[in-house]
């Protein structure tokens, strides 16, 4: 009659027990008093009186009991979890083959997702480290007819946008230039962000040290000040904490350091230092401050609380139209009135989102494949453990208890797999961050942080529950019933169907992943093969951005450029030398568009005016980069008379505007200044913006016509690239010991860098494809092995009836191939969607989906045959006698 454990007492139980205990006391006491001679009618009252305040005492007892029950319940739950985990670990350790296979599969599946999630997190999810990032917008002036995303704003316009946009509560301007910084050791060339004084306050950036720019510090005549970027302060100044108040010389003026910024994204550019617009000699020049056609500024604005992006856009449209109407002449070159506003968060992740989301989706598919595989490995394991499970059930473990045990095992496995995956993903994440940092502003925010760890753990648990529950659901019948039935043969039929379905699903998913990888690889291979129109072999290039103050007129720049060309020509092995403002693949978008009309033809309205990318190149440019001169000539050293400038045009431009005629000798007129340009030569087309971009129409002017300070030098030589790089540095330093030389690389490297993003996506998709294929093949092999094991007896009968080995081989392989074909057919439907999703990521290659799909199908069938071989061999080796005996 004794009840020993009452751990799972509810509140009602607690009340009942306490009341019963105290009632018992009072009854016993009453009885004792009556026996001692107290009048029975008064005894109970006396008993209660000696007891005290029954209600209060009961309440106190209940609270103690409640606490005890609660602690005990938690302890019991904890104990049973520990017990389950211990048991699970022991069980898993007994089957190392299964455990290791599952761990590796899950580590690959989960690790891929952790790595990709670090990109999703760093580039898309995290808020940029600006306090006001949700209210910040980037203003741009896109000119669709020139295919330019932003032509920039002119200084006088800043005031217009500030005063005429009621939906904005602040507009800051920005541009970036490089200057020489003197003082504190070596002279350095620093990239300098030039901003109006409210820039950092608008963004909501608080300085790490000192302060940011104060109101009025951007006014003409203000004392020049500098704010340092975190990276520059740490890497170049050794994180000197006493830097505030120290001075540097820039542009022949003393600049005082007033602050150091916290680590920020490389946005809008990777700047070393920041100065107010009053400190920038270029921005302060009379031309810049007054001319509306000098567009070089970027504008950042903060929306007023309550104002929407739509309000901002309508304000901007009004201002844009007003400016075009008011200053007609100044906007001749830009036919579009449109001024766009983009939230800063999307501007910062621009371009990255489609690729990152595609990778995320594909990684998810890889994990699904891994889950399916682990699920049918688990099913096979459950089948082997039926006896153990039945015994546990017989010993009193309910179905729920057994399920919980199985779930504990799968979650334990998936957590271990997830941690392993995280260990795999760790180095991958830093490699990805390293590459992506060069591609987008926020690449440096990709890191293995707590969000990535949290995501991985959550994904691991979800994975464990998924592949733990899946087999349990397909079990269908009670385990005890199954044991009673005894045979694996009866249970096997349904099992095999479930497992075949899983394999078909795996193949379908894997084929989708492989089609994605295949399309990407095809498209990237196409990029590598595409005819770029120039010969990047044996050419070394460097960036020489001449010092603003020292090279302040065209003649000085020309002297430097000519001396450089002459000296390098004298070097051994050099076959051609050129200077230019740009070269193929030095940037991935149009930099300098020229609007023009053809002389002798009526000028079209400005929206349909011909335009071309304008480059300034020295005479040997085409020979240096291997572009053929198709007719006419290249420039000569004498082409420097700016009054009647000669130009060379690309073939596609010549064919478009002078079809069937020789363009040489024809003349064009620039839209902006009305200069007449005479075409003296036609050269081959070049993929100026990298292999992924279309061939632009191009116009080349002699380098001497503008004498840009920001020079790219190009040298073709027979010697080694390394020696030539040193020679370039030496020659520049012979001419100007203080002149920095940057971005020294081969022309081939420049081309590779411009396609670094598709290369990374191709690499990752290729990896995911390989992992998917391996996992699916392993799954198929497993199911075939299982199926052959089930049918050994049947094969025995067939052999006994005279079937030859090859027919049995065909039977087994045929079964495997049928599964794969079923999967491929389902995958074919899904792959169409992938193709759609990838349209934004694919570069160049048009069509070929069917071919890619056929290739994937072929690979899969081949893999299926290989995966079936081992089980098939076992089937053909069956000895009829043993097969019968075994049953």
């Amino acid at each position, binding site marked *: 009659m*004794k009840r020993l454990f009452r751990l799972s007492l509810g509140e009602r139980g607690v009340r009942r027990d306490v009341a019963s205990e105290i009632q*018992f006391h009072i009854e016993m*006491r009453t*009885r004792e008093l009556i026996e001692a001679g107290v009048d029975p009618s008064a005894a109970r009252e006396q008993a209660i009186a000696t007891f005290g305040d*029954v209600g209060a*005492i009961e309440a106190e007892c209940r609270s103690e009991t409640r606490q*005890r029950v609660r602690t005990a319940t938690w302890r019991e739950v904890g104990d049973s979890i520990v017990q389950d985990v211990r048991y699970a670990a022991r069980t898993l350790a007994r089957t190392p083959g299964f455990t290791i296979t599952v761990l590796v599969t899950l580590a690959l599946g989960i690790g891929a997702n952790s790595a990709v999630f670090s990109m999703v997190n760093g580039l898309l999810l995290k808020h940029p480290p600006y306090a006001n990032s949700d209210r910040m917008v980037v203003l741009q002036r896109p000119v669709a007819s020139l295919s330019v995303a932003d032509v920039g704003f002119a200084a006088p316009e800043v005031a217009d946008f500030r005063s005429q946009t009621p939906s904005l509560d602040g507009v800051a301007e920005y541009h970036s230039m490089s200057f020489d910084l003197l003082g504190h050791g070596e002279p350095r060339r620093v990239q300098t962000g030039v901003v109006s004084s409210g820039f950092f306050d608008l963004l909501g950036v608080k300085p790490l040290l000192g302060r940011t720019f104060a109101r009025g510090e951007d006014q003409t005549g203000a004392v020049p000040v500098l704010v340092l970027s975190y990276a520059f302060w740490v890497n170049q100044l050794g994180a000197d904490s006493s830097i505030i108040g120290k001075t540097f010389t820039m542009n022949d003026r003393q600049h005082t350091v007033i602050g150091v910024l916290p680590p920020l994204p490389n946005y809008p550019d990777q700047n070393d230092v920041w100065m107010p617009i009053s400190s920038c000699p270029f921005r302060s020049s009379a031309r810049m401050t007054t001319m509306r056609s000098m567009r070089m500024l970027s504008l950042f604005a903060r929306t007023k609380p309550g104002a929407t992006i739509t309000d901002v856009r309508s304000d901007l449209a009004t201002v844009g139209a007003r400016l075009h109407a008011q200053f007609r002449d100044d906007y001749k070159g830009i036919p579009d009135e449109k001024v766009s506003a983009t939230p800063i968060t999307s501007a910062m992740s621009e371009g990255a989102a489609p690729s990152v989301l595609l990778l995320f989706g594909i990684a998810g598919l890889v994990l699904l494949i891994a889950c399916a595989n682990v699920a049918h490995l688990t099913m096979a394991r459950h089948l082997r453990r039926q006896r153990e499970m039945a015994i546990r059930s017989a010993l009193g473990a309910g179905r729920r208890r057994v399920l919980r045990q199985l779930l504990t095992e799968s979650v334990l496995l998936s957590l271990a797999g997830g941690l392993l995956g995280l260990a795999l993903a760790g180095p991958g994440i830093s490699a990805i961050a390293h590459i992506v940092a060069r591609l987008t502003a926020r690449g440096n925010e990709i890191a293995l942080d707590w969000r990535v760890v949290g995501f991985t753990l959550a994904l691991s648990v979800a994975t464990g529950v998924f592949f733990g529950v899946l087999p349990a659901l397909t079990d269908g019948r009670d385990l005890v019933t199954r044991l009673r039935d005894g045979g694996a043969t009866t249970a096997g039929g349904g099992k095999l169907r479930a497992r075949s379905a899983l394999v078909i699903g795996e193949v379908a998913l894997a084929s989708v992943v492989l089609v994605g990888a295949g399309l990407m690889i095809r498209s990237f291979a196409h990029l590598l093969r595409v005819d770029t129109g120039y010969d990047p072999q044996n050419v070394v290039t460097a960036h020489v951005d001449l010092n603003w103050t020292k090279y302040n007129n065209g003649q000085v720049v020309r002297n430097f450029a000519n001396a450089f060309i002459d000296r390098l020509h004298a070097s051994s092995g050099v076959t051609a030398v050129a200077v230019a403002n740009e070269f193929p693949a030095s940037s991935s978008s149009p930099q300098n568009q020229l609007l023009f009309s053809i002389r002798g033809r009526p000028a079209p309205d400005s929206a349909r005016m011909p335009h071309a990318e304008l480059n300034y190149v020295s005479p040997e440019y085409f020979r240096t980069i291997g572009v053929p001169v198709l007719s006419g000539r290249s420039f000569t050293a004498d082409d420097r008379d700016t009054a009647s400038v000669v130009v060379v045009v690309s073939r596609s431009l010549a064919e478009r505007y002078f079809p069937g005629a020789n363009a040489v000798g024809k003349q064009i007129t620039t839209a902006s200044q009305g200069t007449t340009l005479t075409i003296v030569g036609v050269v081959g087309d070049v993929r100026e913006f990298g292999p992924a971009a279309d061939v632009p129409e191009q116009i080349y002017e002699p380098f001497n016509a503008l004498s840009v300070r920001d020079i790219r030098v190009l040298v073709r030589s027979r010697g080694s690239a390394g020696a030539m790089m040193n020679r370039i540095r030496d020659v520049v330093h012979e001419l100007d010991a203080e002149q920095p030389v940057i971005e020294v690389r081969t022309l081939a490297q420049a081309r590779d860098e411009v396609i670094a993003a598709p290369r990374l996506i191709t690499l990752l998709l290729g990896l995911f494809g390989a992992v998917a294929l391996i996992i699916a093949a392993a799954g198929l092999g497993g199911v075939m092995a299982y199926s052959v094991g089930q049918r050994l007896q049947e094969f025995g009968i067939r052999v006994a009836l005279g079937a030859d080995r090859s027919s049995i081989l065909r039977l087994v392989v045929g079964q495997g191939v049928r599964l794969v074909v079923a999967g491929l057919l389902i995958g074919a439907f899904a792959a169409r969607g992938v193709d759609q999703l990838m349209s934004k990521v694919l570069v160049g290659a048009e069509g070929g989906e069917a071919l890619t799909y056929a290739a994937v199908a072929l690979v899969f069938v081949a893999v299926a045959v290989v995966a079936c071989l081992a089980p098939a061999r076992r089937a053909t080796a069956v000895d009829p006698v043993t097969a019968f005996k075994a049953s």
Partner: protein
Amino acid sequence: MAGSDLFVGTLDVLILKAVSWGPIHGYGIGRWIRQTTRDALQVQEGALYPALHRLERKGLLEEEWGVSETGREAKYYRLTTAGRGELRAAVTRWRDYAHAVTLALDTTGR
């Protein structure tokens, strides 16, 4: 309210002692305390129960439901291993304390 006349912890020791001979219900413990101390300790009987429940929560006592001598279902307490250890320690503490106080009170003059 509970045992205001008692030195702190005295009731706990007495309970542990009462339980030390085997399972016993709350009423039995109270009766034992009354009888062995010859009613010298003025304890309101109800005060016993919160103390019992507290000791149970601390893991010094455990419960067991059984049938009493009157045929009614009753809650019995018995010592846990921890309870037995605590009783031993408490008895030692009490004796040392009593001895010290006795020594002091028995001293004659300074």
